[in-house]
């Protein structure tokens, strides 16, 4: 059996809202999240805004520390390691952001932006670093002479290529991409998507691919992880999620997307305002206020995540038609 390159176990991240109005209310950005990513595979994370996708990305690349739970890189729990060992582990997991321009330093030439992680993390000399920069630029379809230019001299698509080159420079095993296409036009999206697939096949990379575009998700991913309000709703192989989704929230997402509307059965019922109010106050299923299949039990009790022939579903009444 292959060992996962990246896994999380019961990952939880809370933020404390400050200010008197909130009375130190605690937001669960991530609530007990677990998954595994195998080498060369792509795991897509889907969910509406505010569901915790970016928070998850930050925990995965080590730019933020979870409140509780484990992050395992190559099978090792990184928070059990010494700080320097942990830093080495996180070199294998790198990030690409949604907005390439704001993620690049506008005052710094592309070459030095790309060299930066090498200076911090390796003992390469200047000549070796130049060569690594050259290779990374080639890999993403740019040329060595681009190293001397500034970010604003590039189009959005090229900037995203540069961001990918920066993520690649330390030769990672995993790339976490947080909505990497949503700032780009469709024809450029296709270019970047193709580049990501080329790189995956050449370098055996694994991806955590955060996206709200189900068409792209169906196209690129091996597994899909659907989350809502920081919790796992449904998790399974791409075929399972797109051909036999069992969770009402997954169905809701599919039925809201024109391309997939006709592929799923979904009750289009709106809950009464009274029910919504009760649901918002309850500690049951987070989706209950919007869920057309919700019953009293959904308000009384948080559903457990079940394993139904390899597909994880957090719902009292998984859909079966």
């Amino acid at each position, binding site marked *: 059996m292959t060992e996962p390159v990246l896994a999380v176990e019961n990952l939880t991240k809370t933020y404390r809202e400050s200010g008197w109005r909130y009375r130190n209310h605690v937001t669960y950005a991530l609530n007990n999240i677990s998954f595994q990513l195998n080498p060369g595979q792509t795991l897509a994370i889907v969910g509406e805004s505010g569901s915790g996708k970016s928070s998850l990305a930050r925990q995965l690349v080590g730019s933020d520390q979870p409140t509780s739970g484990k992050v395992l890189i190559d099978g090792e729990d990184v928070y059990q390691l010494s700080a320097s060992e942990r830093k080495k582990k996180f070199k294998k997991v790198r990030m690409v952001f949604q907005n390439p321009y704001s993620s690049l330093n506008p005052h710094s030439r592309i070459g030095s932006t790309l060299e930066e992680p090498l200076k911090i993390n390796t003992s390469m000399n200047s000549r070796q670093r130049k060569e690594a920069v050259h290779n990374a630029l080639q890999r993403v379809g740019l040329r060595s002479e681009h190293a001397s230019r500034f970010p604003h001299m590039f189009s959005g698509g090229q900037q995203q290529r540069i961001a990918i080159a920066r993520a690649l420079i330390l030769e990672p095993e995993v790339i976490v991409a947080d909505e990497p296409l949503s700032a780009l036009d*469709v*024809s450029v999206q*296709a270019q970047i*998507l193709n580049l990501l697939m*080329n790189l995956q096949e050449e370098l055996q990379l694994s991806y955590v691919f955060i996206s709200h575009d189900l*068409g792209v998700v169906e196209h690129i991913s091996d597994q899909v992880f659907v989350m809502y309000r920081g919790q796992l709703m449904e998790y399974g192989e791409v075929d399972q999620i797109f051909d036999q989704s069992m969770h009402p929230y997954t169905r809701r997402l599919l039925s809201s997307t024109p*391309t997939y509307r006709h592929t799923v059965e979904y009750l289009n019922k709106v809950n009464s305002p009274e029910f919504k109010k009760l649901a918002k106050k309850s500690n049951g299923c987070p989706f209950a206020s919007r869920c057309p299949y919700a019953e009293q039990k959904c308000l009384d009790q948080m559903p457990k995540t079940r394993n139904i022939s390899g597909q994880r579903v957090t719902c009292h009444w998984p859909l079966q038609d």
Partner: protein
Amino acid sequence: MKLLHIENLSVEFPTHKGNVRVLDKISLRMNQGEVLGVVGESGSGKSMLALAIMGLLSPNAKLTADYLSLNGQDLMKLNLDQRRKYIAQNASIIFQEPQTSLNPCFNIGTQLIETIELHGIRRRKKQRQRALELLEAVGITEPELRLKQYPHQLSGGMNQRVMIAMAIAAEPDLLIADEPTTALDVTIQSQIIELLLELNRTRDMGLMLITHDFALLSESTQRVCVMYSGQIMENASTDNILSSPRHPYTKALLDSIPHIGERHHMGQRLYSLKGRIPAIDHLPVGCRLGPRCPRAAKECVKTPRLDMIKQHGLVRCHFPIPSSTQVEGERND
């Protein structure tokens, strides 16, 4: 009578390098109650077209047109003031970011009532009643409460509904929606589009839906107009465009979107047009798609005209893609 009738509309801006033409001889027509989709990559001039129709171009823009009529009134015959007033009574526009169009310092009620007052309702009580009606029409729950709330207290989807309420306050015959859902979540997106289509049906309001999302157009529009670099490249019924695009640009856009059921396979790639849309002041000679076009040939250094193709629509290309049904027909002969 056409709802909207545009012949050869161009818009130019003075720059330090001389005039740049951001819209080049746009011609299009919309029937009363029609839903027209406008697509194209960013920078193709979609928003500029919307602003030109609405009379909202900045003062330094130079607009010319052989004919420009809205609801039968020739707009070019009106002076600027008359034109603005007439357009405001007949057409409205909503934009991508509702937050930027709403004033954060005033509550929803004040802003909505201001719009209602503009359209001639003077009595305070009537205004309020109309405001509540409008909020209900756009599916906002607890309208009484919303009137007192400020934009930051409402979600993005709710703010977009408020914008739509303001836009329909004057009962316009034409509503232009410029990427109305790009900034919203998919579940909210579909609700907003449904609302716009419902208003289209129940009020017989023409809708110009500007978007870069082909999937959206496939369900909601009757015709699609494809723009590139300030020109119309193809203009045909939605069915024709989707089943058999004749312009290489339209086909490229459609092919670069992953298709339903297309899943991760080793070596499988999406089609993608090489390069990117040219800067409007650095256009290629001849066909503007030329440097990126897979079908380009010598002839393409001459500018193609927007020509009628029988049983299809208008296409600007020297070498249009043969129709998929036509090819079959030829084989049968």
